[in-house]
């Protein structure tokens, strides 16, 4: 029995509906477990972090990309390659600081919230997709880039767009190159 040589041929498609339902069930359960929105958000972020630290190697192994040489390249990589690979969408990237270390990803379409219109009144500050922030943070950490990732705007909360902000903190590996 021979296996297909490229990873691309091994796409076992699972229904998107199942994925969305699973995510929704996760959030619903967390809402039952925790009263405060902040706790749910934190929990989602932590779970995402756990996913991110593992997902990064899958991303690197499958996409065989080269090392990014700037924060800007990294942000582009996340938006154009990673988001495309895992969620099938390509957010647009903006650099929002002169220092070049703050970026935002504007999500036009977000499969996770396709079937969610707005948050219930008692969950007004819930970041429904906070898992994504954790994933990005965990993945970046494994390639030695510390970052803070949060939702700056959220359509579910009534904002015009859904915007994820990535702020790169001090790079850890610069020390090596100082001679």
């Amino acid at each position, binding site marked *: 029995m021979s*296996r297909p040589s490229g*990873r691309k041929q091994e796409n076992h498609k699972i229904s998107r509906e199942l994925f969305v339902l699973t995510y929704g069930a996760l959030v619903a359960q967390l809402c039952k477990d925790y009263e405060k929105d902040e706790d749910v958000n934190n929990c989602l972020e932590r779970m995402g972090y756990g996913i991110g*630290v*593992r997902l*990064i*190697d*899958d991303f*690197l*192994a*499958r996409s*065989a990309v080269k*090392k990014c040489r700037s924060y800007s390249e990294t942000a582009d990589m996340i938006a154009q390659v990673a988001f495309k690979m895992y969620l099938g969408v390509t957010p647009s990237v903006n650099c929002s600081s002169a220092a070049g270390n703050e970026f935002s990803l504007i999500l036009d379409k977000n499969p996770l919230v396709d079937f969610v219109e707005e948050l219930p009144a008692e969950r007004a500050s819930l970041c429904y997709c906070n898992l994504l922030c954790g994933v990005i943070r965990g993945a970046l950490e*494994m*390639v*030695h880039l510390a970052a803070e990732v949060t939702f700056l705007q959220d359509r579910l909360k009534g904002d015009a767009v859904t915007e994820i902000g990535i702020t790169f903190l001090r790079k850890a590996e610069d020390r*090596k*190159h100082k*001679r």
Partner: protein
Amino acid sequence: VGHAVLAINGTEVNGRFTADGKDVLEFLGNPANYPVSIRFGRHRLSSNEKLMLASMFHSLFAIGSQLSPEIGSSGIEMLETDTFKLHCFQTLTGIKFVVLADPRQAGIDSLLRKIYEIYSDFALKNPFYSLEMPIRCELFDQNLKLALEVAEKAGPFGPGS
């Protein structure tokens, strides 16, 4: 010279006794048992020894990339000796995959990348595997074995020859 008796007449030997409880020296001393076939070889490394050697290599790798006259050196990619070649692939996440092979074996680069894929699938996606611990995942071992077989069969000219 570091070699030990590994097997007698096909039965594996552990220390002084064979797998079926016979004393090796006694067995070899009895002419009635001749002719006898004895396999000598180096001991297989224990897990601890492997860990020790791996951490030694990890340090050498770090020193190597610092010593390199080229800025931003990637570290040791290959170590060549008369009897074997050591290939090392470091991922962007800092994981090193090390393969020891015959000097004439080709296709190790693609083998290393294949191993990266296998690791990211069967180790990382196993929720019961904790990062940085020894990998004791059945599926990982199976797929690794398959990949090694493919690479070995390919011989000195790489897969597809």
